[in-house]
């Protein structure tokens, strides 16, 4: 009896922790949401099936929490043992009681005045490991908090914010390390991906987005241009424990729109890279847009799927790129398998058999103006797609909008904008968008659900054969995962810039989404 009690206590103590092994098995614990993209595979598929096509029409608001700041609310929450952890922009963290939505603690960071961040002081979420919560900050620090109190365990500077470095993505916890990406390619920074020891905050490794002199790939940059070459890492990547590899997208080369000052392919900008998680060493890379002049950051979510492809079992990575193409790669070797256009584009005349695009010279920004599809917000962007093993469909919110790019100048000075073009809308054109369901293995579109404004919402698919997403006009909605039929919607009153999640509280399934300045939780009545 006593032994059983002790065992029970030990199990309870373990449950209160988030060891690496628990994140590794996140798929077997669908009541929680343990890492940014749900699992290391980043499928954003929940095996919870209480909310179904039959009853989703009865979905009601369970509670709401309003954030304090005025910046865009782009976060994906974590749910662990009765507590929801959210990041509030710019760089705060709040723990909410899962039953009531009431705050348990908040970490409020003093952000220096005069922050240089190109596209808003945002944060997309936190990471959990053992008894700590981790957040990257817009002033480019990584902070470890006590999971029970929110008090600071350690706080390290990742880079100098005064030169345009910032951190907006959620960290990724793997083994004993916290992997953190960064932003700043509109300011001529040199991109990198860092790993820190979760206990001490000591940096374990750094992988540079542009290779230095003597390193392979440095020859893809003319002169010293690699020093200001961007290739930042501002969207959280994925991880394959068997291969021991991290998969991470990299951003645009700098300056964004002027290529003649950086002749060459500009590695490793606009790539998917596979890095050894223990050392940060590059295993392979695939470059979606060599020598990009249209700001086509490949900072999207790499979705990992194991399946039979063209007759044999393969470990795949699925990647819907900002450039309008959906890609399939072998994730052990980086071998290019397929590219299929999923949104309007004119920057490439096609993709050759090795996966290299055939560029369209008319889309190079010019003094007279160059019409480019998609615009530099992309056909896809950081907003998460979802893959459902149930329907074998890949769900992507596609943005349909073009723009005209006028070349300007881009002299490099630390902390100043390093872009090289101005953007105007195409007169009379209203952008639009669609949630598209693609056959995951061919990229063929099966159906689409059109939305009024080009969307920035992430997607969740569930075992209830549902797909959840939102619109910039504030609607949060559920579709039939097989047909795309609208089954439920609610006007939340604020634009949706975030990804939905699902979890259990007291045995019942809920769905949560950040909309406007509110975190809204829905459940069945």
């Amino acid at each position, binding site marked *: 009896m006593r032994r059983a009690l002790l065992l029970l206590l030990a199990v309870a103590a373990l449950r209160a922790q988030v060891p690496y092994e628990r994140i590794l098995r996140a798929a077997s614990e669908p009541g929680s949401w343990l890492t940014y993209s749900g699992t290391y595979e980043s499928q954003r598929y929940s095996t919870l099936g209480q909310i179904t096509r039959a009853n989703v029409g009865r979905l009601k608001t369970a509670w709401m929490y309003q954030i304090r*700041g*005025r*910046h865009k609310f782009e976060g994906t929450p974590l749910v662990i043992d009765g507590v929801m952890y959210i990041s509030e922009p710019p760089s705060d963290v709040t723990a909410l009681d899962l039953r009531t939505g009431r705050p348990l603690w908040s970490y409020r960071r003093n952000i220096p*005045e*005069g*922050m*240089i*961040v*190109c*596209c*808003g002081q945002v944060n997309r979420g936190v990471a959990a490991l053992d008894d700590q919560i981790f957040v990257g900050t817009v002033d480019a620090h990584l902070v470890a908090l006590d999971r029970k109190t929110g008090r600071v365990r350690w706080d390290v500077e990742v880079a100098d914010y*005064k030169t345009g470095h910032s951190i907006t993505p959620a960290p990724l916890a793997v083994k004993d390390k916290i992997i953190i990406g960064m932003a700043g390619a*509109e300011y001529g920074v040199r991109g990198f991906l860092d790993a820190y020891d979760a206990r001490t905050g000591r940096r374990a490794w750094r992988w540079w987005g542009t290779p230095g002199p003597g390193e392979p790939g440095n020859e893809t940059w003319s002169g010293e241009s690699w020093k200001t070459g961007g290739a930042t890492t501002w969207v959280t990547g994925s991880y394959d424990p068997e291969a021991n590899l991290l998969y991470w997208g990299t951003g645009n080369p700098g300056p*964004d729109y002027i290529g003649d000052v950086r002749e060459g392919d500009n590695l490793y900008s606009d790539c998917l890279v596979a890095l050894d998680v223990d050392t940060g060493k590059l295993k392979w890379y695939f470059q979606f847009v060599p020598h990009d002049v249209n700001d086509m950051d490949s900072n999207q979510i790499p979705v990992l799927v194991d399946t039979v492809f063209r007759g044999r079992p393969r470990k795949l990575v699925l990647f819907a790129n900002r450039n309008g193409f959906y890609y399939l790669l072998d994730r052990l070797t980086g071998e290019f398998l397929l590219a299929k256009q999923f949104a309007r584009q004119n920057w490439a005349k096609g993709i050759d058999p090795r996966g290299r695009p055939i560029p369209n010279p008319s889309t190079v920004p010019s003094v007279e103006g160059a019409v480019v599809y998609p615009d530099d917000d992309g056909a896809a962007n950081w907003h998460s797609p979802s893959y459902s093993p149930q329907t074998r469909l890949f769900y992507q919110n596609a943005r349909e909008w073009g*723009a005209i790019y*006028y070349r*300007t*100048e*881009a*002299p490099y*000075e*630390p*902390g*100043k*904008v390093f*872009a*090289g*073009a*101005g*953007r*105007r*809308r195409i007169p*009379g054109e*209203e952008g639009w968008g669609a949630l598209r369901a693609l056959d995951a293995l061919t990229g063929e579109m099966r159906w689409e659900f*059109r*939305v*009024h*404004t080009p969307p920035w919402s992430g997607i969740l698919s569930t075992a209830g054969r549902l797909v959840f997403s939102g*619109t910039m*006009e*504030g*609607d949060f909605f559920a579709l039939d995962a097989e047909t795309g039929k609208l089954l439920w*919607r609610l*006007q939340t009153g604020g634009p949706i810039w975030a990804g939905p999640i699902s979890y259990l509280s007291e045995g019942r399934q809920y769905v949560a989404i950040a909309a406007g300045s509110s975190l809204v939780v829905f459940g069945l009545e």
Partner: protein
Amino acid sequence: MIKATLLLLAGAVAWGQTTPDDLVQGQRLFGSQCAYCHGPRGDGGRGANLAVPRLRHASDDAALVQVISRGIPGTGMPASALSARQTRQVAAFVRTLGRVETQALSGDAARGRLVYEGKGACGRCHTMAGRGGGLGPDLSDAGARSSPQYLREALLDPEKEVPSGFLQVRVVTADGRRITGVRVNEDTFSLQLRDLSDQVQSFWKRELTEIHKDQGKSPMPAYRTVLEPAEVEDLVAYLASLP
């Protein structure tokens, strides 16, 4: 009093030194530092339209300098690393974007006001000092926002450049009603418009069988068919005189 004089002097030093070369530099800096969001001509895109006489977050030159150097909290407008001199150059250039050149006009503003209120019946669709309709833009400060040339063109040929935010839409309802108006709001599921009698009508899109968006169309008649040329000039003079 002494303090005020000193402040004035400081202001004069800050702005009195703006030379034509400063404006050229300001334009170059605007191209490299600001056009990324505000567009090469400053009329917006990602960021706000700066080609307007009054900036919402910068009521005077000092505030504009502050906004450029410190950013606007809670928005996408970041701080900048421009030097004090560069900031002033950019600010001076931004001020030129929304400037409306004054020019001598042949019309008579007082007669133009009578045309506005009488034969033109402009207030049916436009607002003047808080009174009038909502189908067209508020004209209370038309002279500050638009040049006489633009105002004349807008009167004679309203479809040459339809102001943004006033898209003409035509819808057909499931029960066969046809309604034309100006779009107030649209989302994925619903549409609200202001019909030609200035009434707001709201629809779920599922209730509509047709939605037409008439880009480049305007419900405003071409006033060359309504007014005599002299009356047009009087009306232009009146609108151009508005603060």
